[in-house]
């Protein structure tokens, strides 16, 4: 038996650890970076590991801990190795310093994670100066390479990771001249926002977009547009950090021929995290961008449990019913109910909205038949709400798509 886990971030390492705990033999984690651990390797703030390891870690400590746990449990972690080929029905082609090889495992768990959309993907016009980066680049420059960044930075975004970028800039001795979000409020914990306001004195500009970047060879100025008034103004800075706006790193999933969910842009998975391809599972932030690392790890653990069941002979479901969201709801994850419905990771679905709502009423229905109707605590753009999952058992496997809609803003 061989299970290959594609990606050695929190989800992948947690999956490998769980597979070994369930006595699965031949667990190999393929990691393209030179060190395992994924994004937490370069997120040097506290708060990792609460939900999964039940104690707080810094990002790098959390990454090291998971790599150690997985290795000690007997998983083989192959770093510096990338999957360079995977056709529908075909084996995995790996490339690394040791050469190229092909393996055809009994099961695959995709945990390739997500990335932030760079400036180009956001179509921000202007010149192409140095000093424009994502949080990922910023944190690797500062924490992994010990390199200087600019002196005055603008942060685009006001989510958790945006505040993480703020902390990183502080560590690098750069001043954050402001944070912008096109939404009417930030989307992180009130505590983070209040703490940041106090500690870094960085203004938060809401309903604001970066409409142009100027400078050569380095950023000199950014043009901001107020979405409510349409007025523009210039902000001087030498660095622009584009944060969040996560997209699943889904190249392998597409290569492997997996059905993709158009809303999350990750592979479509059922509550057991099975993809449309038999023996292929997917977990973590490849499913949707992005959840905190510990949530991703729990998702990996969940996929490992169902993969282990599959390896013991459990049949692959034949029928898959997609779950679709109506605007302003953006996506739901998992997004398929199969004929062998089970509980999703953490016992609930993750639901995203494009709008703020407090105590909203949500309806889940299939072919006009209501499966669930109730209130959830609140909806916040860019953050997942938890939707109870008991209705999944009532889905008719041969029926039409399940629709989730916002009935009432609350």
């Amino acid at each position: 038996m061989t299970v290959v886990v594609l990606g050695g971030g929190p989800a992948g390492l947690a999956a490998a650890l769980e597979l070994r705990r369930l006595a699965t033999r031949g667990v190999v984690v393929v990691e393209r970076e030179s060190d395992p651990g994924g994004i937490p390797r370069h997120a040097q703030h506290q708060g990792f590991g609460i939900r999964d390891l039940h104690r707080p870690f810094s990002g790098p400590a959390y990454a090291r801990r998971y790599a150690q746990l997985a290795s000690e449990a007997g998983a083989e972690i192959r770093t510096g190795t990338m999957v360079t080929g995977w056709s529908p029905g075909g084996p995995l082609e790996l490339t690394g310093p040791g050469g190229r090889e092909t393996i055809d495992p009994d099961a695959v768990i995709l945990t390739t994670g997500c990335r932030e959309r760079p400036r180009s993907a956001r179509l921000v016009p202007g010149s192409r100066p140095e000093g424009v980066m994502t949080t990922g680049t910023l944190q690797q420059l500062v924490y992994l390479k010990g390199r200087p960044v600019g002196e005055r930075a603008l942060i685009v975004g006001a989510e958790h990771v945006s505040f993480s970028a703020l902390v990183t800039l502080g560590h690098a001795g750069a001043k954050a001249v402001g944070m912008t979000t096109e939404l009417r409020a930030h989307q992180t914990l009130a505590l983070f926002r209040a703490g940041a306001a106090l500690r870094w004195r960085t203004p938060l500009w809401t309903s604001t977009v970066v409409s142009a970047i100027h400078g050569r060879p380095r950023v000199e100025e950014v043009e901001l547009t107020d979405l409510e008034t349409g007025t523009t103004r210039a902000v001087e800075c030498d660095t622009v950090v584009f944060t969040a706006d996560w997209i699943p790193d889904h190249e392998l999933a597409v290569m492997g021929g997996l059905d993709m969910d158009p809303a999350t842009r990750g592979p479509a998975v059922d509550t057991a995290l099975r993809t449309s391809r038999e023996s292929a599972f997917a977990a973590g932030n490849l499913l949707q961008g992005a959840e905190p690392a510990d949530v991703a790890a729990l998702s990996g653990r969940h996929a490992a449990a169902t993969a282990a069941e599959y390896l013991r002979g459990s049949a692959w479901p034949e029928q898959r019913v997609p779950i679709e969201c109506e605007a302003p709801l953006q996506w739901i994850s998992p997004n398929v109910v199969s004929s062998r419905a089970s509980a999703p990771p953490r016992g609930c679905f993750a639901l995203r909205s494009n709008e703020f709502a407090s105590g909203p009423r949500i309806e889940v229905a299939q072919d006009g038949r209501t499966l669930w109707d109730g209130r959830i605590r609140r909806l916040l753009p860019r953050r997942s709400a938890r939707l109870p999952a008991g209705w999944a058992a009532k889905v008719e496997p041969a029926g039409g798509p399940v629709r989730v809609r916002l009935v009432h803003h609350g």
Partner: protein
Amino acid sequence: MSERLETDVAIVGAGVVGCAIARELCRFDLRVTLLEAGPDVGAGTSKANTALLHTGFDAKPGTLEARLVARGYELLSEYAPRVGIPVERTGALLVAWTEEQAAEFPAILEAARANGCIDLRTVAAEELYQREPHLGPGAQGAIEVPGEGLVCPFTTPLAYATEAVLSGCDLRRSTPVESVARLEDGGFRLTLPGGELTAGRLVNAAGLHSDELDRMLGHDGFTVTPRRGELIVFDKLARPLVRHIVLAVPTKITKGVLIAPTVFGNVMLGPTAEDVERKDDTGSTRAGLDYLMSEGGRIMPELLEHEVTAVYAGLRAATEHADYQVSVHAPEGYACVGGIRSTGLSASMAIAEHVREQLGEAGLRLEPKAGQPPELRMPNIGEAGLRAHQRDDLIERDAEYGRIVCFCERATSGEIRDALASDVPAVDLDGLRRRTRAHMGRCQGFFCGAELAARLDAREAS
């Protein structure tokens, strides 16, 4: 310090044209100096274009441009595969979206015949949709141009420059010409930062600045008005949508917006065409990007479902004239190679051949160099050939070719190391990108940006 240098031929401008001329002249027993104001060769207009290998079917018959594009196509088609410049012969479909556009077809076919392109044919709408099934609705038909293709805009000038350097060319980057004076007994004196260069002959291949250099020498033949072209590059996952270069029916003003694959496996949408004032105005604009997205949505709606990998803008060296501005002033030994617009990449080798012939007729002694020409093999960065990470022989010899550093583009540690130590080495991130593809992919450095910065730093330190 004041350095005094001497050369037989000084070429100003190491874009694709200047590099091609340097390569051509270095085949002869001449001292050649290639001067580039910017940090690298091929890093101006040459790097930001549509990267098509044109047959010249749509050039204005009888012009120098028509002749040189056709000849350049022939020369580059032979040279590129020999030295490892990525080329893909996809063919083009020039699509008519209205009856008025379709009515232009006979004239287009007629002009193509006059340009020596005899393999064009019309394609009915039904066949067009079979061959390009993702085209938006409403196409009336197309002209197929089988010879049109893609060529790597990065490797081409680098290959020319590398061959020139291997043949003894003195390449000086970051060396702007501050002034130029004619010497009384013939030849030129060029003032450079920290020195002077005396040259027997002078070739002006300064692209956007060719008119300025021309004026320094007392000529007043043309004025360059930069014409900006904005382009959008889509994710590699969009590549299966497009099989050919999808051209538009040209108008009097522009060749229109095209959709084409790239040799790197992406899909390109563009360009816009807008005259701008500043010769460094390579910024993209909201209006330009919005226009391209609306055109893209019309030509191939599914394209817009894919992520955008890069946005860039290039400046064409357009002049008030409809043709290239190539002239050799025999008595003084000055060749001006100006007004080379979007077809310069395709025509580059023929432009170089033409300039060499003209200089020869004007009295430049052209003795072929003794010995074998250098063996040149550029690292392959195109999708059509094998990349380093796909070659067992390379990885077996050197494990660094199996260590992929840029995941999106699959550029390896070995290639990056080589690019920093090559005959024309990369000196900055952009140079590394053009030599290896590192950092030009969908993540734009999220994963490898810091690693590449560290490697560039290490190189500077060493």
